[in-house]
């Protein structure tokens, strides 16, 4: 059995003249919590909608593990659970009836399974209430419940904590972790919240203006830099001195550090320069870039390009 839960190849979507997704190639492995990160309008939702068959790709491929025909594609998709944006239900029907109706469309989902998923999302006691009286958080949990109905191998969540209060966000994140650990699900979630991705995901795909800028572990994203921090006695003098030096980029990060982006050679030259000019160097060490910084670095570079 393949380790790949989902793969796209050069997936492209164009709405008229606007390129929403541009030759996107991603790979989600089994067991991943894959964070699909990007600012609003980056193409995240469009990509997820393409994966779920809501939007027709202009070109490119979407591959589920077993899929040689359109029938198998439909079958493979039947093992994918999803929430796209705010989950919507038939307001006059109870949560249970909504799930039962959706279960009947999912093929081979038993009534027992409906009760199971209600239990998982902790809505069993309120399952008889009509959805119209549900809070936003409850709807979100019901959304996850419906996504879990077909006992999926892969669950796709589009901005699952969007609009929730802190308590709701906490509960949802806890639930997502539980899905992975307890039910061995692969999760593909999109978000524009870096903290969410940082807390939940073991793999990240960063998308900006429809193009994939990065795919890999969050650690690799932040570690794959030449960023260093320098602590000196004269911060302003050091900044002025290093700013003039070729081959390195310097920035002032707060009151106590300078950040230098430079390779080993340039770093040695910078150190010599500071010491030669009478500036005391207390510390010169590799700096850990935050995901936010990495994200901004990648997206701003893309914009410059």
């Amino acid at each position, binding site marked *: 059995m393949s380790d790949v839960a989902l793969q796209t190849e050069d997936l492209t979507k164009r*709405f008229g003249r606007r390129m929403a997704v541009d030759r996107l190639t991603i790979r989600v492995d089994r067991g991943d919590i894959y964070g699909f990160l990007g600012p609003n309008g980056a193409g995240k939702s*469009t990509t997820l*909608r393409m994966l*779920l*068959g*809501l*939007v*027709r790709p202009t070109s490119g491929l979407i591959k589920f593990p077993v899929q040689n025909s359109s029938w198998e594609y*439909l*079958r493979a*998709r*039947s093992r*994918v659970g*999803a929430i*796209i*944006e*705010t*989950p*919507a*239900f*038939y*307001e*006059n*029907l109870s949560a249970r009836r909504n799930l039962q*109706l*959706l279960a*009947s*469309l*999912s*093929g081979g989902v038993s009534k027992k399974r409906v009760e199971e998923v209600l239990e998982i999302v902790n809505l069993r006691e309120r399952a008889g209430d009509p959805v119209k009286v549900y809070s936003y958080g409850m709807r979100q949990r019901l959304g996850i419940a*419906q996504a879990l109905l077909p006992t999926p191998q892969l669950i796709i969540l589009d901005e699952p904590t969007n609009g929730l209060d802190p308590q709701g966000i906490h509960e949802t994140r806890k639930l997502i972790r539980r899905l992975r650990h307890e039910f061995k699900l692969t999760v593909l979630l999109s978000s524009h919240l870096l903290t969410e991705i940082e807390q939940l995901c073991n793999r990240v795909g960063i998308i900006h203006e429809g193009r994939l800028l990065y795919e890999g572990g969050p650690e690799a994203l932040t570690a794959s830099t030449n960023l260093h921090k320098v602590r000196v006695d004269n911060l302003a003098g050091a900044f002025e001195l290093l700013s003039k030096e070729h081959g390195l980029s310097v920035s002032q990060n707060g009151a106590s550090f300078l950040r230098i982006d430079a390779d080993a050679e340039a770093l040695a030259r910078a150190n010599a320069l500071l010491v030669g000019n009478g500036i005391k160097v207390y510390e010169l060490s590799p700096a850990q870039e935050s995901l936010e910084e990495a994200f901004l670095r990648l997206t701003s570079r893309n914009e410059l390009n």
Partner: protein
Amino acid sequence: MLTLLKLELEKLFRARSFYLSFLVLIAFVALMLWGFYTYAARKTGGEAVEQFKYTYESKQYFNGLTFALYSLLFSFTLLLPIFVSMSAGSQIAGEARGGTLRMICTRPISRASLVLSKFLVTALHAALLLSFFIGLNLIVGLIFVGWGNLELYPGPLNLVDAPGKIMRDDALMRFGYSVLSGTWALLVIAALALLCSVVFDSPAQAIVMTIAAYLTLYIVGRVEFFEHLRPYFFTTDMDFWRDVFKPEIPWRNLWHYACTCGAYTTGLLLATVVIFERKDIVT
């Protein structure tokens, strides 16, 4: 497909608008009864009798069957097409607006089956509305006006070219036929509304566009200025349903227009399926 159909049926029977449409029809029958009484009283007594010796609209002309026929013909002009437009127009666009469409479309079902099941449910709704309406009119006609033979003459209902009569039992059967022919004619509107429902993401827009198209063609088709265009309007073909009330049913003519309406319906449905399958659900 069967599951989808069951789902759509449940939604139909749980929708408030479904019951509301029947209530409006009851109100319409009451209005018709009032109008019928005043009209009949005016035409069969007082000045009318003094001025003219003979009238086709005599006391025996006005009976429960005539009442049901008047009521049916008037409601078919506007009321029933509006209900069918509302029912079909909100099918896809309503779900798109509510967000439930993406929920359904992420399930492993084909979009074509979804369209077809929604159409079948709309067709059922139309048939139920028509059966209910005709049944109600006949019962109200029996109780309040009394039964007799169905007499027809050229003019007011534009049904016949020469005066004629349909005997009571035969006339009752004709009302039965009209459920079938009327529903079949209304399916053209249903298919058009469903197409609009796929093209537009707002149910209101879909419904308004359907009704606007229907009314425009209906009215334009009756203005003498456009007489030569009339045969090309689907509203003209839809009129075939009334043929079942002619003393001699022109079967050949009826089948011709029934097939034409069927072609409109299936053609529009086919277009709906093709468009919906290619549609990006971004709502």
